[in-house]
């Protein structure tokens, strides 16, 4: 149900103002990166980016393009603030999280600028809720400097094949080891837990494999506790791209189709726990 926004009082300019007919388009994506309490929000003319980090090892970004919103306007080149993601999610889902067909929560978001709180107007079935969430000074964020030219190995998989694997990862293992190779086992996920080791192999000619570009054999280990939250993004997505660079840094990019069929992206970057060089393999 379209929501007619309260027009800003004359003379007031909002650094960021946006309207969304279905707040779930935003909340479900934010949930996929909600593994820390706080997040940094970036708004540009292109859209909204929400970043969450942990342990200086892992970073997750949720992208919601401007086109997803019914209205999206940014007055400065870049609007940036830190906010409690937990509180933001609680507000966005204030009318409940169950998605009944035909009902949706409409959202209007306003941010006046540095030092001001983020204002949310949420409406469902004629009931309006106004939320004011304090914003903070943005933290310095990690720059993984992960660019396509440094990519050594890349595969694109249909998420369906990985969902169960990630949900059932042996959490008694400290690490998740990812092997990518032009030779067998091609793509392997390994855990080393209390019961013993487990390996999940995906052959390069599997129906799940949409793209397979592995140039050299790489085996990298990542702290499983850091990667486990990415399971939420995996659950929402239809495809995932897995890339590693020469240092073993991992990039996971999830393509998510929302209820209206629009595409959004979530990405996770993770640094390796230990680097095993080819010589040690």
């Amino acid at each position, binding site marked *: 149900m379209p929501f007619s926004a309260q027009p800003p009082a004359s003379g007031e300019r909002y650094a960021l103002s946006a309207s969304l007919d279905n707040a779930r388009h935003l909340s479900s994506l934010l949930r996929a990166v909600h593994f820390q309490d706080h997040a940094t929000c970036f708004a540009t003319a292109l859209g909204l980016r929400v970043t969450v980090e942990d342990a200086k090892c892992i970073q997750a970004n949720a992208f919601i393009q401007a086109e997803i919103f019914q209205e999206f306007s940014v007055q400065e080149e870049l609007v940036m603030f830190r906010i409690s993601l937990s509180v933001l999610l609680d507000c966005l889902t204030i009318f409940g999280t169950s998605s009944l067909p035909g009902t949706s929560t409409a959202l209007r978001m306003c941010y006046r600028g540095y030092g001001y709180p983020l204002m949310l107007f949420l409406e469902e079935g004629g009931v309006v809720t106004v939320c004011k969430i304090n914003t903070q000074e943005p933290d310095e964020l990690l720059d993984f400097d992960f660019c396509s030219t440094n990519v050594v190995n890349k595969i694109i998989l249909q998420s369906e*094949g990985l969902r*169960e694997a990630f949900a*059932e990862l*042996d959490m008694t293992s400290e690490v998740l080891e990812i092997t990518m190779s032009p030779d067998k086992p091609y793509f392997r996920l390994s855990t080393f837990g*209390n*019961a*013993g*080791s*487990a*390996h*999940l*192999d*995906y*052959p390069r*000619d*599997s*129906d*799940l494999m949409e793209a397979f570009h592995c140039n050299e054999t790489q085996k990298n280990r990542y702290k499983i506790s850091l990667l486990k939250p990415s399971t939420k993004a995996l659950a929402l997505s239809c495809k995932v791209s897995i890339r590693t660079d020469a240092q073993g840094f991992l990039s996971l990019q999830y393509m998510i189709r929302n209820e209206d069929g629009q595409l959004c992206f979530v990405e996770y970057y993770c640094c390796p726990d230990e680097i095993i060089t080819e010589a040690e393999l």
Partner: protein
Amino acid sequence: LSRIGDELYLEPTESGLSLRAVNSSRSAFASFLFAPLFFQLYDPGIDGPDAEVFRCKVHMKSFLGIFRSLPSLEKSVGKCLILLKPNASHLVLQLHCKYGVTKTHNLAFQECERLQAVFDIQSCASRLCAPARVLVEAVVHFPPTLAEVTLGTGAGGKISLRNYVEDEAEQSKTMVTELWLAEDEFQSVAVSPGSHITFCLKEFRGLLSFAEASNLPLTIHFDEPGRPVVFTLDDTVLEVHLVLATLSDLESNSQAPSTNGVSHLATPSDDFADDLESYMAAMETSEAGEGGPPSPTFPLHTPQPAESNPEEEEEEEEGAVPGTPPHKKFRSLFFGSLMTPGRPGPSTTQEVLAEDSDGEC
């Protein structure tokens, strides 16, 4: 099997793969024997009659974890390979899934001695056979927390099931449920009238669910109180046995308990009811004969195969190894007493050897 014990024993034999479990108090034992025909490929790796049989045990939870979600297994797994190579350090379980995906689990295992409860179905005086459904519907009347149930045979071939209340004094305070099943509910009834046995319902429920799911009739073999009750399921490719200890009767004091028999068995982990030794006497039949006191020291070497009852399974042993885990002493022994860990001790006692605070004589 996980309802019985924490460890899964695997034993590949010529007649199939046997999976077994025993509970911590040694009052319940179960074995599932899958015939070679059950498998697409079965190679027990036994070359010749003298070849050493490889036996191992793994943590039940680790093994079960591999088969965690049955619905998704049915949907996505095509084949399962269980492989143990000579001198391997892990047991390999490999699931071949949809889309060419392979899931390989390397499980740590421990080599072990044969786990076998000694029991003899042929010598049981009574036998009942019923479709699992009949027993499921009977058992549903008892609360899920009920520990023991008494199965009895009455006049006119009727079979009764009644919850067991241990303390006489509490009888008036607890709800007693008793139900009677007519002879025609069973597929076959061959019982000695007026007999009854009391066994642990919890351990039985596990087998009952399996029987119901696999639609197999359940046969119950039992004898006097104190002697184990054996539940069996039979299929062309599967043979299941569940052996449970039963409570010995206060009244049937026919066998004089012997101190000798029990003393060497008093290991720290076990609290024995003295009704044990009457059963033990029966256990050591192969060498000591019937009813007499068992030998003071537990034979660490198995009785000669020639002397053992042909119905009983052969026990192959390599002899005692110093420092072997205590439970190895019990490999061929099956306890007739009902022991529930955590309780001060079974209340029905004859002459108590290991006295508990409530010891009655």
